């Protein structure tokens, strides 16, 4: 929207806005159009929508009040943490309320003997680690945006990070969540609850099953010993072979990250990370655990990486941070070498890596679109960065084609359309490539069980925003799984 266009249809929201103002502190309801527009997108700027109203609650009770009012006026709502998501999961609704948790950032409780911390959703991922670092603990999942992404957003997206290879995703590190359900109740989902794993369903539900207002995370003991190695290879293939060899040797490093020449160039331009010159690919391998084990694994790693033309070992935490800095700033750093780009996120089986990378190369040449590759090589989670010049007519569309074709490659090779960035609004259209209609209907039933009125982040995750009133009926004919002979029905 540009100035001069009609303002968004906020008039319809007037009664709700009035109700919000009377039940929240005055400065926590934003309706000024200029201010509202600063919330029009998250880390994915491709999709934009100016929210009808923004609220900045400071307590769980206030969040619940907002959600109850949204129900009363039948207005959709979207939760937003720090606004760093890369799938448009927090894309606002012009006809709805954006509930921003960035003022809810208190660390409420630290219980070291039980390895737990209780935090509000707006607390940043890194702030949890900082609160317990001196005592020798940390919070394990580490998305590249960890210094700013909020734990509430991490829970919604089931965020990963470089170290998830060994330690698992957010879902493995959340013990309990107090949530505001889509109809405005405050309930607590606990890992220890008998029966269905509702917490498991909630983590990664991208705001469609409610809003987390208080999160109990698991803290991990900082490992006794950490060795970070930077291995430079002449080609991506050599790097890929080393990755497979490391896993085959039975080593589970904390992280194995790979960057190709183009992404190294970007990182170099941004943070001067001084990676070895002339590398076609670098691998960052981090080993951690008991000192003796790390030493043994490191010896083995040196043998495996004998094809590398340079092997650099971080001598101290400062050097380790320097190695990681290049990798962690890679996404935003690409802004230095390209006017615009799409951050893609897909998964392939590790063994398919070389084949898929070669296919991406072909796509890149065919459409004259550069693709930089950064990935969590250990678990086959690719982050191709599709570069284009938004000033060049048609370039955006070509980039979009390449970006979509990469996801097709992932699905064809038995992978997934998202590893850790979520579906959000950006990948809704790719869901049918991965799931049959029956699959999607089944997921929709879960959603409807939590959110029968379809008010909680509608339009995300699922391709057809089906109202829960139109719950899929009794299926006509056989279930596709039965039809294909993969399952039997009794």
């Amino acid at each position, binding site marked *: 929207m540009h100035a001069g266009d009609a303002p968004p249809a906020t008039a319809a929201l007037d009664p709700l806005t009035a109700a919000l103002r009377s039940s929240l502190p005055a400065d926590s309801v934003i309706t000024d159009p*200029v201010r509202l527009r600063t919330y029009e997108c998250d*880390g994915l700027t491709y999709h934009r929508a100016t929210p009808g109203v923004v609220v900045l609650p400071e307590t769980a009770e206030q969040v619940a009040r907002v959600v109850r009012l949204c129900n009363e006026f039948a207005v959709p709502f979207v939760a937003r943490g720090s606004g760093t998501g890369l799938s448009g999961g927090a894309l606002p609704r012009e006809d709805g309320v954006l509930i921003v948790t960035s003022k809810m950032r208190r660390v409420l409780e630290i219980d070291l003997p039980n390895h737990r911390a209780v935090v509000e959703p707006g607390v940043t991922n890194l702030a949890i680690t900082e609160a317990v670092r001196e005592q020798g603990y940390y919070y394990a999942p580490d998305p590249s945006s960890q210094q700013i992404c909020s734990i509430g957003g991490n829970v919604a997206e089931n965020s990963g990070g470089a170290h998830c290879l060994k330690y698992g995703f957010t879902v493995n590190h959340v013990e309990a969540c107090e949530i505001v359900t889509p109809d405005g109740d405050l309930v607590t989902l606990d890992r220890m609850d008998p029966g269905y794993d509702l917490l498991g369903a909630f983590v990664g539900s991208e705001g469609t099953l409610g809003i987390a207002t208080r999160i109990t995370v698991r803290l991990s003991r900082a490992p006794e010993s950490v060795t970070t190695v930077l291995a430079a290879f002449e080609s991506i293939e050599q790097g890929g072979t080393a990755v497979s060899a490391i896993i085959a040797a039975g080593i589970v490093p904390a992280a194995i990250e790979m960057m190709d020449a183009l992404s190294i160039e970007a990182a170099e331009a941004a943070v001067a990370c001084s990676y070895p010159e002339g590398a076609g690919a670098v691998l960052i391998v981090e080993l951690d655990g008991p000192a003796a084990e790390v030493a043994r694994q490191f010896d083995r790693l040196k043998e495996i990486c004998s094809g590398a033309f340079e092997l650099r070992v971080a001598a101290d935490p400062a050097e380790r941070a320097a190695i990681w800095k290049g990798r962690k700033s890679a996404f935003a750093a690409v802004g230095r070498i390209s006017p615009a780009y799409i951050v893609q996120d897909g998964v392939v089986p590790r063994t398919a890596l070389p084949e898929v990378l070669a296919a991406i190369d072909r796509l890149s040449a065919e459409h004259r679109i550069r693709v930089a590759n950064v990935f969590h090589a250990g678990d086959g989670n690719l982050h191709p960065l599709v570069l284009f010049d938004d000033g060049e007519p048609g370039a955006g569309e070509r980039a979009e084609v390449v970006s979509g074709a990469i996801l097709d490659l992932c699905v064809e090779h038995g992978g997934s359309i998202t590893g850790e960035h979520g579906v959000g609004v950006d990948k809704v259209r790719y869901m049918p490539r991965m799931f049959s209609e029956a699959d999607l209907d089944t997921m929709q039933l879960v959603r409807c069980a939590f959110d029968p009125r379809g008010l909680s982040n509608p339009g995300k995750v699922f391709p057809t925003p089906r109202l829960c009133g139109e719950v899929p009926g009794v299926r006509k004919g056989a279930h596709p799984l039965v039809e294909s002979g993969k399952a039997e029905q009794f």
Partner: protein
Amino acid sequence: MDPELIDDCVHCGFCLPTCPTYVLWGEEMDSPRGRIHLMKQHVEGTPVTPEMAGHFDACLGCMACVTACPSGVKYDRLIEQTRAEVERAHERDPRERAVRGLVFGLFPYPRRLRLLRPGMWLAERLAPFLERAHPSLGAMAGLAPRVERRQRMPRLVRARGERRAVVGMLTGCVQGEFFPQVNAATARVLALEGCDVLIPAGQGCCGALSVHAGRADQARRLARRTVRTFRKAGVDTVVVNAAGCGSSMKEYAELLGAEPGFRVMDLSEFLVELGPVAERHPLPFAVAYHDACHLAHAQGIRAQPRELLRGIPGLELREVPEAAICCGSAGTYNIFQPEAARDLGDRKAKAVGSTGAELLVSANPGCTMQIAAAMRRGGATIRVAHTAEVLDASLRGVSL
């Protein structure tokens, strides 16, 4: 405002946790990313609304976001252009205009500041009354330091021992009038390290305060005068002991469209490059070093002052938590945005207090005044000193 500079922002949000106002309020429009979005709105045709101007005014200009940005967004340049645009396009209310007029008609002019000196002891008592007239006036009075006796600086201070360099020295406006002892210490340290120090008479403000407030014409006038003064003195290096001044003077070429003809160096940067020769006497102190934003973020100078302090026997250097977050002083910020400045000052005072240090060292008079005032409010006391004063004491073997 340059749309290309605006487009460099990819909206990743890495700047948010380093932005003092985002740290305080957690609101998008008071973060660098949000402010760039507001700039974009303005470039695309939205007029400067009072709300918009308020968010720009609330920016401290600390440049922590420039350090944090992986995409290399030149926020420093952007906010300067924006402030100038706000001054052009936005009509401030009369009271605010009057206060701004007073501040910018006073601080950059040493002779006018000098007139205030005899009355400064009254400031503390007057503060509550001034506060009622305008919060900015109250803030100014609350910050007023106890001034030391004026020291007339000689035109030339000769090197002790072998002469290793000839440098010019900026005396500045606020530094010169309110902290004369810092300038004296700077000249002595340079001389003891073997420098002839030229201190041209007739220096005024370097223009930094005006640049940072979007008063471009005043800034250029003051900058040109400073350039003339030092060119006449014939030095090829000008040493500056105030972070804000140094960072602005390093950008004279952009402000004036021509190279000034001398290089500008911060005192610590210059001393480390020169290398120490004078003997350091022990100073048994626990020192907290505060990174002034215009030194750390704007000039990238973090290691040098620490290296100089560590070079003093007996001195124990302690790091302040959240070192990258501004103390809220930020040039004239604590005068125009007293509430936010106060909150940031309190936060910094707590962080400094947690180190248990007895002495707070910083390279900017504004920071020192701000943090010392915040610590007094919190009932704690800490002695403050400029890096130059600590070095001076060590080099001369006197106590601090």
